[in-house]
């Protein structure tokens, strides 16, 4: 085949075909257009203000590495006036996190950004290696996910930074939309699609500047700019990527490459139609029904950027089966009772408070991290957690299941 020329400059050889519009671009036009689009996302959603100090949640993986590289480029090109700081979480996993942290350390030098590393050890008194030693390999992702959520906020707090950006991309958002449709969780669908999540109870906000960027283009951007990133599975959750929602997203992309953004578009429209949700898709403030940003990423482990795992469906099914306990017995009700048909649009609500121990935002008097720590410190995990450990991959939904049980009991 004769080489295709670039759709944009009409000169150089095209090396990229864009998923969203099938435009064929050369290396330099692709890089420039990719950056310009992130810039447009940032300006149209008024993500930053001049002089703002921003912590980039950096794992050393492709998404956060590209985020750091693009933000540095744009900050200089368009004079955003941002102070960019890399913030990494050290879960304390030898042979995995210490390697990826080396990548982040190199990034700090390459991008000339200060780096702060916050360790589980110092925050919680437990590294993941120690947690695994205590609870075993199964179920440890639950701990990691819960600890991680707080760690970014605490790290930001320590740096006196009010805004953390994360590397979530369009594929992640699309997956969140699909997962939450399956899970039936509209408030979470709404939070997952909004570019900024802030919580009334905390002054740290989170945002995802790469929300509209295809994972494929992120990888290609890293490749063509020869960015230095780290890509190995966490040794404690190998091949977590074999998750059903992720596979579905990739199959969809194969069938119709635009569909990832099409799902994001659907998700945004649906988010604006979630009952009790204040209109304003731009930022998702934590009003009564929506728990705050802190609750957003349940069990998302660092290496997986919050993506789902294959066992999630099984856990969901279990949860739904317990919900439907009453319904399955309805054969005994011979005639439907008048007015009993529930057609009301009810969405579960949560009230937020501060954890009595650590002050972190929580839907319960004691936050999940403190709960887990209690178990660890008492040298025996809680019974409920042991149940969840039957299925390692399902562990990320465990907290949600517990949450559910607690909610329905109250």
């Amino acid at each position, binding site marked *: *085949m004769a080489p295709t020329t670039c759709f944009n400059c009409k000169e150089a050889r095209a090396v990229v*075909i864009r998923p969203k519009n099938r435009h064929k671009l050369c290396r330099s036009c692709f890089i420039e257009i990719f950056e310009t689009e992130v810039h447009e996302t940032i300006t149209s959603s008024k993500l930053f203000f001049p002089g703002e100090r921003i912590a980039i949640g950096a794992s050393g993986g492709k*998404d956060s590495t590209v985020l750091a590289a693009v933000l540095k480029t744009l900050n200089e090109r368009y004079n955003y006036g941002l102070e960019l700081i890399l913030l990494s979480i050290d879960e304390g996993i030898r042979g995995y996190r210490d390697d990826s942290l080396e990548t982040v350390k190199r990034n700090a030098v390459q991008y000339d950004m200060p780096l702060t590393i916050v360790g589980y050890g110092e925050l919680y008194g437990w590294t993941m290696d120690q947690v695994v030693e205590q609870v075993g390999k199964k179920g440890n992702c639950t701990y990691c996910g819960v600890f991680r959520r707080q760690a970014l906020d605490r790290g930001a707090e320590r740096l006196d930074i009010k805004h953390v950006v994360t590397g979530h991309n369009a594929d992640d958002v699309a997956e969140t939309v699909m997962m939450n449709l399956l899970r039936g969780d509209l408030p979470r669908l709404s939070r997952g699609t909004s570019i900024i999540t802030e919580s009334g109870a905390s002054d740290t906000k989170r945002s995802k500047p790469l929300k509209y960027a295809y994972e494929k283009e992120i990888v290609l951007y890293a*490749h063509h700019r020869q960015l230095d990133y780290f890509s190995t599975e966490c040794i404690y959750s190998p091949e977590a990527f074999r998750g059903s929602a992720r596979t579905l997203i*990739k199959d969809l992309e194969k069938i119709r490459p635009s569909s990832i953004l099409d799902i994001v578009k659907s998700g945004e429209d649906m988010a604006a139609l979630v009952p009790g949700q204040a209109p304003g898709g731009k930022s998702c403030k934590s009003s009564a029904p929506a728990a705050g940003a802190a609750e957003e990423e349940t069990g998302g482990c660092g290496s997986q950027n919050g993506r789902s795992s294959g066992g999630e469906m099984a856990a969901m099914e279990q949860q739904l089966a317990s919900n439907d306990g009453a319904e399955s017995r309805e054969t005994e009700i011979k005639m439907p009772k008048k007015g009993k048909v529930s057609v009301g649009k009810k969405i579960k609500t949560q009230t937020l408070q501060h954890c009595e121990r650590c002050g972190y935002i929580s839907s319960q008097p004691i936050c999940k991290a403190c709960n887990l720590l209690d178990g660890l410190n008492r040298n025996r995990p809680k019974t409920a957690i042991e149940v969840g450990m039957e299925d390692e991959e399902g562990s990320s939904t465990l907290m949600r299941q517990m949450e559910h049980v607690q909610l329905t009991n109250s």
Partner: protein
Amino acid sequence: MSDSAIGGVAPIPITVEFTGGLEILFDNQRKYAISLPGQLEDGSQPNISYLVQYLVENLMKDQRKELFIMEENVRPGILVLINDADWELEGEEKYELQPRDNIVFVSTLHGG
């Protein structure tokens, strides 16, 4: 597979790279120099489909083939670059390999 080559046609030397986490499936080695037969038994030239099959049978150390191929093609979520260009620009699995081609397989499925 090399025995399917027909004598007299020069073999095709190429380089193959695995990145983005795929290297784990290939003995943690990122770059391989390999040589493909210049012509296959049926008279056709080796293409990407042939290469993928060749890699699975000869280079892949991991038993879990489904992490690399699906429906006899590269698994969705793995990018293929032919001399740095997206394979979609070059005819995907039907692209016929040329001497000194550099083929890169990049996983997008590994963590970010």
